[in-house]
């Protein structure tokens, strides 16, 4: 089970829950399960999010493998200049 961390303001859509465990092999599976678990988050996920998996930031990648020991931080989609 990967440890999923929801960043501050997104917790408004998870009833204040900041951390949870989700069983997923890939980022896509994790995001699907997250959206099912917390339907209020679905809109944000649909609009695009970035994920930090064990410290590395992944932008819009569905099939990045996630291990049971992984820490996944869900963040808004990042942009640059």
């Amino acid at each position, binding site marked *: 089970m990967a440890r999923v961390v929801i960043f501050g*303001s997104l917790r408004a859509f998870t009833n204040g829950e900041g951390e949870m465990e989700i069983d997923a092999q890939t980022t896509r599976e994790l995001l699907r399960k997250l959206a099912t678990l917390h339907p209020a988050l679905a809109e944000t996920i649909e609009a695009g999010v970035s994920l*930090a998996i064990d410290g*590395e*930031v992944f932008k819009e990648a569905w099939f990045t493998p996630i291990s049971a020991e992984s820490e996944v*931080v869900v963040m808004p989609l990042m942009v640059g*200049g």
Partner: protein
Amino acid sequence: MKQDFKILGTRPIRPDGLDKVTGKAMFGSDKSVTGMLHARILRSPHAHAEIVSIDTSKAEALAGVKAVITGDDFADVENRWARYTMQNCMAQGRALYDGHAVAAVAAISKTVAAEALKLIEVEYKILPHVTDVDEAMAPGAPVLHEGVKARKLGDDVSGNTVGYYSFGHGDIEAGFANAELVIDRTFKTAAVHQGYIEPHGCLADLGGDGRGELWCSTQGHYMVREVCSEILGIDSSQLRVTASEIGGGFGGKTTVFIEPVALKLSQKAGKPVKLVMSREEVFRASGPTMSASMDIKIGMTKAGKITGAHAKLRYQGGAFPYQMVMMGAMSAFAAYDLEHVQAEGWDVMTNRPKMISYRAPGAPMAVYAVESVMDELCQKLELDPIDTRLMNAAREGTKSSYGPTFKAIGLVEALEAAKAHPHYSAPLAPNTGRGVSCGFWFNFGGQVSVSMAINADGTVNLIEGNPDIGGSRASISMMAAEALGIEYDRIRTIVGDTASVGFSDVTDGSRVTFAVGIATINAANAAIKEMCKRAAKIWEIDAEAVEWVDGAAQPSGHNAGNFPPMSLAEIAATSGKTGGPIAGHHEGAPDKAGVSFGVHMVDVEVDPETGFTSIKRYTAFQDVGKAIHPAYVEGQIQGGAVQGIGWALNEEYIYGEDGLLQNPGFLDYRIPVASDLPMIDAVIIEVPNPGHPYGVRGCGETAIVPPLAAVSNGVAQAIGVRMFELPMSPPKILKAL
């Protein structure tokens, strides 16, 4: 990770250099075709007004006018972000800021087009406007767009508040309770423009058959294609976009301002249309970045340990919804290893041009505020600013304030280099102060495509899809040469148009050398694999028994066979007989871009009688992972530092009570000139990024983050008074004295 490089770290001449020093290079406004028309845009003279009616009949009747368009010529777009982009290019119903486009003309000459603009009659009904972030966020402010307020926000903020973000961990109140000194300050920074010297320019040709050609100055021609085809309702395959040479972008060319207008005019007139912004239009209707109002509270022990940190960032981003304050909230405390931290941010709309990214968008202002408070804490507690930052510095394993746990990073190395540098111990003259600041940027990977062809004469053509904004064709050629094991000048790298190579994201996030580099290395490896196969065929041995060493195929060991190495040129020469052309390509979306930290140090002198600040000495330290072409890496660091100096001292969007921009030109929008500056000493630190085969991190953006606070901290020491507002223009400093 590869360590022994032959080409990386050298300083060859860039492939496009000759064209750029002889005037041959073609930029956005340099292309012309026979029969083309010239276009001009009519812009709102009001900060906020309902467009009651537009009468274009007199303009259309003028001899030489071939097409006139208004917002009515654009059909609705389903995707709301594309719709905002379209409405920013051409107002529909309401003009939302001074300079907002309301109509456009294509005519046989620039003179006729300018004449036609004067004949367009627009009836405006002036509406209340707001340009200040705190006023726009307050309940009761004129609201730019209804129904876009960020979810879950209460009535204490207005409908202009389109985003709310919060990052952090721990319990900040507990953190502050443990502090021996808590400082809580409010800061303001002005909106600043990217200030590229090349105004936006394009040449559009959209035929009646729905096929189009577009030449334009952009940071991403695939982005232009996607956005324009969506706005114009055509298939993206039918619109071929070619990126011209780009005369600076810094984030400001990661969207479109004029391209849909030129395409629509071309479609209506049935002729190619050239559209180039004037400098005044660039200032009034492109860019800028956000202005900010920020509260920063940091608690510290007497020994210098940060016990708690809290940031509240309110960013003003202009006339349409946007999402950028989160980058500020994520960056604010990224340099520190904190147990109790929270950074919150609000995105706010106003009657100003819609913001677009500017180099490390959102980070410089937040870090300015945080690093100012850090400096004040050090000053009050009589602590060394570098030692204190070292004590709190983020390092490998630190759980960052924005969530992820850092891998290998180079902040400690940069701080140690700064501390050991002779600049830090040099004596200071009277009226002079020395400021230090950290800075940070994430860096991105993103989508990328590279196609490489091995020619029969042993040379290599490489096509990539990212506009070369500051020498990337050189660094990409170098990585290709390194990977293939051949000389740099045997490779020609070009930026392909949207029909010649696969999709690539915009040139942003300091991603090009990183992402295109990975794709280039992978493309080279694919070509190498094929070349090994050809050698194996020629030698009649197993392909697995061939390896690639120093630019040549060779048997992997004595058992594999006894053949002399066969060079790339030799394999290429016979490729027609061994199975046809040899190529390699790679398409992907690499991540693991590797964050980058920098530390800047500046000596400033303030004239106590005039408040004039001059930069006397500047040294910038930055972890870049691996510098492919060190001269261009230094150039990125130097350029970023100077943009930050401009932000700190003189650059600002000045609005009057009437909501009109007062300084839309380089005369009164004051970017630094050569005589304002000393040499900028760039010190490259190399802590390899584990996410790249050569250790590369992006380097372009971090450099603009530290200078704001470094300069401000220097001024604080020079005059004994701390400034809480940027720019620190002479009238403000003199008033504070």
